[in-house]
């Protein structure tokens, strides 16, 4: 067996590989098979809706250009949910395509004081959704972990930061992303709005959201939005 073609091909090549795959990949899959996998639409929650509507307030023209105007009355709620899911999905694609995940991890470990810096240690159910195909654990932190980032900073902060990180954090080695804007940091384009939505989503499913900053709801200027929110009860931060 040890020096024959069939031994090398079947035992080393196929059998050992299969053994490793079954024990290391199939076992966790079976263990977590009862955790439901959430769709993108199911991932939209009150916290995220709040941030998304906040984007509509702060960047009315770019927002309208990309998503149009919300319908009046009850339909607004559904409309915002749908657009928010759309933004979240595109934001994820931008996050992946720009390689954000090569410098920012998305899991908090139970060691090295990480729960004190970032928030609660990551758990398996948090990753059971469509946006974790493949999972965005990450392997390197040039910048901080982002899985508890949502709600810590305002949409304005993110808009300026993605446009030119050194304006907010002078020693930041993070690259600029001007192509997510139409020329200025207060004019995020479709991808820009989507990426901000995605980052604000990270950790929005936890009660501890937002973890760091005191977080106050902004007065919504638009009467229709206000009406839609008070009726649906969403869009209010916990």
């Amino acid at each position, binding site marked *: 067996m040890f020096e024959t073609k069939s031994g090398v091909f079947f035992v080393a090549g196929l059998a050992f590989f299969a053994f490793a795959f079954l024990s290391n990949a199939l076992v966790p*899959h079976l263990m977590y098979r009862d955790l439901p996998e959430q769709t993108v639409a199911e991932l939209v929650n009150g916290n995220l809706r709040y941030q998304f509507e906040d984007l509509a307030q702060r960047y009315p023209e770019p927002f309208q250009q990309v998503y149009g105007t919300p319908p009046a009355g009850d339909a607004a709620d559904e409309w915002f949910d749908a657009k928010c899911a759309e933004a979240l999905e595109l934001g994820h694609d931008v996050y*992946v395509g720009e390689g954000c995940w090569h410098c920012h991890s998305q899991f908090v*470990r139970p060691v090295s004081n990480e729960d004190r810096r970032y928030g609660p240690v990551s758990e*398996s159910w948090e990753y059971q959704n469509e946006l974790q195909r493949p*999972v965005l654990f990450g392997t390197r932190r040039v910048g901080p972990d982002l899985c508890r980032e949502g709600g810590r900073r305002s949409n304005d902060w993110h808009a300026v930061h993605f446009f030119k990180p050194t304006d907010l954090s002078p020693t930041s080695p993070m*690259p600029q992303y*001007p192509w997510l804007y139409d020329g200025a940091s207060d004019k995020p384009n479709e991808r820009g709005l989507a990426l901000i939505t995605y980052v604000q989503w990270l950790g929005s499913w936890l009660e501890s959201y937002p973890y760091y900053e005191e977080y106050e709801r902004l007065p919504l200027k638009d009467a229709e939005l206000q009406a839609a929110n008070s009726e649906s009860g969403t869009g209010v931060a916990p």
Partner: protein
Amino acid sequence: MSAAISISPTAPATIDEHQLVDRPIIVAYFLAALTYMLVSLAGGFLMAFQLIQHNPLQGIELLSPGRWRMIHTNAIAYGFIANAFLGALHWAVPRLTFRPVFDRRLSWLIFGAWQVVVLSTAGGLMFGQAQALEWGETPVWIDPVAQLGLLLVAINFVAPIMRNTGPMYVTLWYFLAAFVWTFLTYAMGNFVPEYFVTGTSAGAVGGLFIHDLVGLFVTPLGWGMMYYFVPILLRKPIWSHGMSLVGFWGLAFFYPLQGIHHFLYTPIPMFLQYGAVISTIAVELVVATVIINFFGTLWGNGSAIVGNLPLRWFYTGMIYYFLTCFQCALQVTLTFQALIHFTDWVVGHAHLVMFGVFSMWLLGMMTYLFPRLLGVDWYSRKLSEWHYWLSAGGMLVMAGDLILGGLFQGWSWAALQPWEDSIAVSQPFWATRVIAGLAITGGQLAFMFNLYKTWQVSRHVRTKAAH
């Protein structure tokens, strides 16, 4: 060269070496490999200059350091290492089996297809179409083509191996297994976590993939080549056949079991994490036997590595291999992980493996093979020496620098210092890395210039012969 032919007892009485080995395709693969080496270096520099806040090409979408970081890693794995290995396989497999590859037209089809795969990967990444798995970023639409290409590669090289009667030399164990493993690994990484599993389980598969790509594609091909070239260059057999057996079967069993060690302290079940840690430490013992075997082979001929440049490349790579595996046995423990995970320590480790070991072996093979492919000796021995010293020295500095820098980053984070402090503490290490990178690049440019001049000489010799 003649030593290789005496390995198998099934050698036909007379054999035309030029009919056996397709030389032009080896040259084509090596030139493609070196081109991607330059692409990879360019990507590395974009990111390296970005980190020290001196990126002159800031704000250009298609040259974004984030995207080019992915091109950097993909170009070295699929562009340089895969192409160079395919070239070297076209030299080694026919000589070990006394049979040409399955079909020479298929060889060129594979060559073309593989360049399409690598170029489309680079292009797709440049235009922001990545998938979220390291080395699996390959855009969705290229995956099936790459998978088919790997199948054809396996057919082309496994055919002569299967037709070979008589005992199989160690190299062929590694090659045969590598063709199976590479195909399976690519399929596992590029389809399973994207389409079949999600979340934590996808993390487990992703860990297996990034690990197996090194362990089951690059490593067996690399060691297979070492078992082939080193005895030829030293003109003596491998020291211990038993140890060769231990090395191969130890790798085959333990290597595939380690992938999860890339994601320790994640929500992946703890018993699987422990399993990965234990298999990793086990494989370091196996590695030690392989290293002992090769140094046992060198024993008594140590001075050969002074004069014989390819041999020096090979043994330097082996020393780096031992260092990086020893490093791995330490860093894989949960104690070390708490400190060094997410830091440049790991980046240093990755560079030591992919450049310090496998790229250096492949550059050594090119140093050995180009004179044989072109029919003339190297234009300048001095340039070859510069190539070696700048590569080996630059790599040592880069790896040492990043490994050390990683410790400081880890301590800064654990001490809950503001994030900016961990950036500030990294700056001198990042600056040193740029300098080491420049040295390595200088070495490769010296090599390429030397190659160009050698080719000129060979052309001159050929035209003279024609007259």
